[in-house]
Structure formats: structure tokens, C-alpha cells
């Protein structure tokens, strides 16, 4: 019998609204007991002393690019999940913009099988349309049988509203969420950074925030009309947030996520042409950032998601306009939240863990997100006081394109436990 006891930690579990010092006994991959003091254990029970630490249900990232198959030079399922567990994640949902695209039974099967041998739980997100072309629907039903938990054409956005309609109607049979990367390509074409003061100063073509907002508005209307759920990925602007708020007030089936970088950086940080701050959607204004921060706290924004998007260093070292969009985030998301939200008292541990674990599990109907007795033993133990510097040495993923490079963050993961097994941290 595989037994593990986590002692003396402060258990923060939003699923049961628990926030106190408790011991957790794990048996056969399941949370067996959560008590004030668990002393009677067998000799074979492994004990982890979590004194001074936060014990959280395992973190869940609903937006990861593992780049496997096809772009293993940037990341693969092993390196990506190694980075995930180092960052405290026990589950990742991976996006389908691989080569080939995850739009078929065989490609989904490949990810699921390889995921089983990786460091954490990997759930693929299937493509909405074949080859992400925005034309014909991919085999959603058959992919669901193989284990997809949502669909998305992330990185691409279906421009044709009739096709979007078909997708939303078709998905209703399967109870799967559609994750939308909202971008009107006619408005964003050629753009490199947010359209505004910075794009004008740098002479870079701009991506106006309305290129996001018009698609979000369209999709809210479609969602309402067809009574079909839509989850908006990586929202970036104040105006987008305002119309999402209105939709949520009307109790429409709308949810959304925000990334750590959109919560922490703004367009002014790009004045030095740092391509590690180049992503889609682009960093917006400080007013946008502040609105996102408020929406993240008050719950209009449901979850935090990394949009972990690895790119090789030499790709990012090119001219800003030639460098690819995207930044890595799995290893820094939690520490960034600790430094910029918890230590600053903007949000509580309970709120952050809710947005990073319990809510994502609810949204995508996943096991996890809870430390109640009987839950799968996915646990993250966090030392809140430790500080570390993000650099190419401390990051372990294949790609190092982090917006936090050379910055000091706070909070370290001591142990990451998946189904009762320690997958990261000292045994």
C-alpha cells in the first residue's frame, strides 16, 4: 500500500472553503483523511513535513502548448510536463495547434498515451475545425471518445460566423466547451503590438484591442442565440471585460481566462523591443491591465491560464517583427501570483488557488481541484517565503522565452504530487 502523509501544512482548499492547519493522509492515490493531527501511521508511510507551507489542491492549467507532436524542438510532452510540475501544476490541458494538428483520433490517442508516461495529467483539447482552417468541423465526437476535454482552434480564430454557428450547435451534443481565441484578422493583420502610444512610438503596426472585442461580442451573441457555452481564452482588454461582465449578468454560458503576463505587464514594457514580451493578444495599456486585475479579483474572470507557448531562443532573437508570438508560463505562473497578488495583499491564497485549481476543474469538468476526502491525491505544497530569479538556468522547460527573465519571483513549489506520487520535489 502506497501511503503518504503531509503534516503541519496550512491546507487551503476552495472546494470545501477550508483554510487551516491540517494533516493529509493519502492512500493509493486518493485523499484518505484530512484531520487536525494524524499520528497513527504505519512504518511504510512516507511523511512530508509541510510546516510553514501552503498545501493546495494540484494546480490545473487550462491553456498549455506542449508543441508535441511536430515542434519538439520547442517543447515536448515530457519537457512540458516537467516544467508544469515544477510550477505546481498536476494537470495541463494542451492546445491542438501542433503538427499534425490534434484534429483526429490518432493524434489525440498519441497525446493521451504519451501523456500517461509524462509527469502530470495531460488532457488534450481537440481542434474545432480540420487542420485549424476554420472550414470543416473536426471529428469532435470521436475525439471525445479518445479523451479530449474541450475544443479550440487556438492561435486561429474562426472568422466565418456561420461556421462558428455550426461548431456551437454541433458541440451541444457532447457537453464540451469551445475555447475561443478571439481575434478579427482583418483588424489585426500585420500587427505586432497593441495599437496605441507604444505602437506609434516604435513604428510597429498595431493590433487594436477591438480586434479581440468584436469577436467576443459576436460569440456572446451566438452563444446566447444557440444556448451554447463559450470559454474565452487569454482576454486582454478593458472593453472586452466590460461586455463579458454584461453577458455574465445575463447568466449566459460564458466563461473566460486571463494570463499572468496580461495581469502583470503592460505595453510600455515593450519600449525596448524585447521579443520575450511579444505574444497574442498583445500586452495592452495600463488601464486595460488594471481592469483585468479588478476582474480577476471580483471573479468576472473565472480562471488563470498560462498560455505557455514555448519558442526557441534563436527564433525570439530575430527582428521583433519576425519573432514568433508567445511566451512560456508554466514555471512562473504561481510565483508571479505570489509576488504580485498575494504578497501585495491584492488577493488571498484562497482566491488564487480557486482560480488556478478549483475553478478550472469545475469549468472543464475534470477530477481534481479539491482536497476533500475521496478526491484524487493531486496536491501542490508551496513554500511561500522563498525567492528565486527566473533565468535560463532556473527554467527547466526546453524553451526560455519568459517575460519574467532576470526578474525575482516569490514562492517555490516544494512538492508536486499526482495521484499520490511525488512527481516533483525531494523524495
Amino acid at each position, binding site marked *: 500500500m502506497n501511503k503518504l502523509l503531509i503534516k503541519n501544512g496550512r491546507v487551503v482548499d476552495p472546494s470545501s472553503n477550508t483554510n487551516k492547519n491540517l494533516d493529509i493522509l493519502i492512500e493509493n492515490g486518493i485523499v484518505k483523511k484530512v484531520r487536525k493531527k494524524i499520528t497513527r501511521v504505519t512504518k511504510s508511510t512516507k511523511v512530508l513535513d509541510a510546516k510553514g507551507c501552503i498545501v493546495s489542491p494540484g494546480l490545473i492549467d487550462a491553456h498549455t502548448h506542449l508543441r508535441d507532436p511536430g515542434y519538439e524542438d520547442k517543447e515536448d510532452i515530457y519537457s512540458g510536463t516537467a516544467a508544469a510540475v515544477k510550477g505546481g501544476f498536476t494537470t495541463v490541458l494542451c492546445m491542438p495547434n501542433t503538427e499534425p494538428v490534434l484534429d483526429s483520433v490518432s493524434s489525440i490517442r498519441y497525446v493521451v498515451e504519451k501523456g500517461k508516461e509524462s509527469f502530470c495529467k495531460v488532457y488534450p483539447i481537440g481542434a474545432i475545425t480540420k487542420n485549424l482552417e476554420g472550414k470543416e468541423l473536426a471529428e469532435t465526437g470521436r475525439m471525445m471518445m479518445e479523451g479530449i476535454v474541450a475544443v479550440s482552434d487556438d492561435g486561429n480564430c474562426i472568422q466565418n460566423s456561420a461556421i462558428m454557428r455550426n461548431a456551437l450547435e454541433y458541440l451541444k451534443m457532447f457537453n464540451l466547451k469551445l475555447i475561443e481565441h478571439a481575434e478579427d484578422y482583418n483588424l489585426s493583420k500585420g500587427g505586432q503590438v497593441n*495599437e*496605441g*502610444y507604444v*505602437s*506609434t*512610438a*516604435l*513604428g*510597429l503596426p*498595431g493590433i487594436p484591442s477591438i480586434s479581440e472585442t468584436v469577436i467576443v461580442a459576436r460569440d456572446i451573441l451566438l452563444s446566447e442565440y444557440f444556448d451554447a457555452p463559450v470559454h474565452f481564452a487569454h482576454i486582454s482588454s478593458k472593453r472586452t471585460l466590460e461586455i463579458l461582465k454584461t453577458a455574465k449578468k445575463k447568466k449566459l454560458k460564458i466563461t473566460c481566462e486571463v494570463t499572468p503576463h496580461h495581469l502583470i505587464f503592460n505595453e510600455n514594457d515593450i519600449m*525596448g*523591443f524585447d521579443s520575450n514580451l511579444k505574444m497574442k493578444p498583445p500586452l495592452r495599456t495600463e488601464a486595460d491591465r488594471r481592469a483585468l486585475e479588478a476582474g480577476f479579483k471580483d471573479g468576472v474572470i473565472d480562471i488563470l491560464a498560462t498560455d505557455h507557448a514555448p519558442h526557441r531562443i*534563436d527564433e525570439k*532573437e*530575430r*527582428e*521583433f*517583427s*519576425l519573432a514568433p508570438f508567445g511566451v512560456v508560463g508554466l514555471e512562473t505562473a504561481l510565483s508571479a501570483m505570489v509576488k504580485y497578488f498575494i504578497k501585495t495583499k491584492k488577493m488571498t491564497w484562497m482566491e488564487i488557488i480557486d482560480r488556478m485549481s478549483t475553478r478550472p476543474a469545475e469549468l472543464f469538468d475534470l477530477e481534481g481541484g479539491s482536497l476533500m476526502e475521496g478526491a484524487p491525491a493531486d496536491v501542490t505544497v508551496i513554500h511561500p517565503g522563498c525567492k528565486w530569479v527566473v533565468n535560463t538556468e532556473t527554467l527547466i522547460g526546453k524553451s526560455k522565452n519568459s517575460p519574467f527573465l532576470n526578474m525575482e519571483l516569490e514562492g517555490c513549489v516544494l512538492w508536486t504530487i499526482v495521484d499520490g506520487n511525488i512527481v516533483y520535489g525531494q523524495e
Partner: protein
Amino acid sequence: MTVKAKAVRHLITMDDLTNDEIIMILEEAKSFKEVLGRDIKKVPALRGKTVVLLFFEASTRTKISFELAAKRLSADVVNFSASTSSLKKSESLKDTVRTLEAMAADVFVMRHSYPGSAQLVAKYIKGAVLNGGDGAHSHPTQALLDMYTIYEKKGGFKGLKVAIIGDIKHSRVVRSNIEGLTRLGAEVVLCGPSTLLPRYIEKFNVSVTYNVEEAITDADVVMGLRIQFERQKQGLLPTILEYAQFFQINRERLSLAKPDVLLMHPGPINRGVEIESEVADSVYSVIDEQVTNGVAVRMSLLYFLVGGKDE
């Protein structure tokens, strides 16, 4: 005793120069202009130095101007040309410039169609980088030669009204000119079709108008910018004809300016589009002089950046 080498100076944007340095470069350019008027137009100021002209975008005047400037300072000049489209596939910019630097070049004059490229190169090499235009971002030597032309004719910048008319959005010249001119006390008015004025441009310490008469009225300097015919295809202008009707600098409009107005243009000009042909050849026009001044200013600048350095 060791003599400390001067720290490497780059010129990427006008931000890299203080106001005093700008004036110093303009003053020094006067004596270099005098050199250009001599029989033997050459001084040994940069003898033994190597200047690489790194042009990733087609350019005739800027390249020739820099080449002459460097040669008249007795520097060795090496030309490197590549199209940006071939760059996408071939060797990266980083590797290209490192290779060239390994051949012991001192100055890289760089022209590139993407913003930020000069700054990127400055990160990878030890030599000085002189930005000869990077996309729509910055073109400081053009601004300096424009400023020299104004300085020579007007004696200063304080209180001058400078109207810049045309495609503001896609112009690197205008960004550098705004910075230099406003810092030295000139008042800059921008004018162009609303689709060719970038968002938030009014935050750059300038005033903005769609009315060309208003822009030109009482101006000390009127500067036209080139209108690319492709703006019509991009849907930013209905026709070139309509542009000309609303924004062309013509005799009638120019008569609203101060009597001693200077008419400038970075070139190449589209006669009959942004400037009426006879106005371009009128007594107000200093367009040809700008070209001459370009060589003198670039000599002054090269001398400022790498001349007289002790090892």
C-alpha cells in the same frame, strides 16, 4: 599609463543624443560642409576605421550619402546589401552582423525595414551602430540633416513653426524630427489624412490637423512627406488625386506661410502628389540643399561617434 577607451556610442533614436550634443554636431557639420566645398574634399579624421554599410532595404540617397561621408573622412567603407525577404530564410541578423564584426569593423550603418533592428544589432556587437532607418521607427540622421538645414537658415529652433504634411503613420522621418525639433523648442504641426495619422500621435508634444491651410499658415518650415501609391491599394486613401486636392503643398497654400518659409522634403518626391512641381523648384525649396547637408551632417556624426578615439 593606460588611456581609457571611449565607451561605444550608438545612435538608434534621437534619444541617444542630448540637446547640447545635437547642437554640437550641427555646429561641427558647418566645418565639414566647408570641406565639401574644397577642391580636395577629404580629411583624415577616420583613417584606419572601417565603416560597414549594412543595408537590408533598398536605398539610394541614404546609402550614397553615408558612403561619401565615410570616404571623405578617409574611412574604409564596406557595403553589405541583402533584401529583407531573403533574410527571413537565410542567416539571422545576429549571425550576419557578428560575422562582419569578426572582420574588425568599427561602425555599422544600418538600414532595415523592421522597427527595432538597429537596437537588436547593438546588442550583439561591440562596434557603434548608426541607425540609417528602421521601418517606421526612427531615422535620426535624416532628422539631423533636416535640423541642420533649418539651423543654418534660421539660426535656431525656438519658436519656429514646422508643419509636416503627408503620411505620418508610416514615416520614420517624422518620428525622429518630432523628437529633435520639439526638444529644441520648435512647434511641430502634423497634417495628413486621418487614416495616415497614427493613434495617440497627439501625445508626442505636437498639434494635429486635417486642414492643410491651417497647418501651413504662418509656418517657418513646411516639410512634405512622400505618399506611397500602395496606400491606395491598402484602402487608406480613395485616390492619389483626392489626396493631392486636399493635402498637396502648392503655390497658393504655401503663400499662407511666412514669407521666408523653407520648403523641405526628405525625398524622393512625387511631383504633382505631395508637392506641386513648380513649388518644388521654387526659391522656397531647400530640397537639394538638404542632400548636400546630409553628407556634412553624417561626416560630423561619424566623427562624433568614432573619431579621435584613443586606444
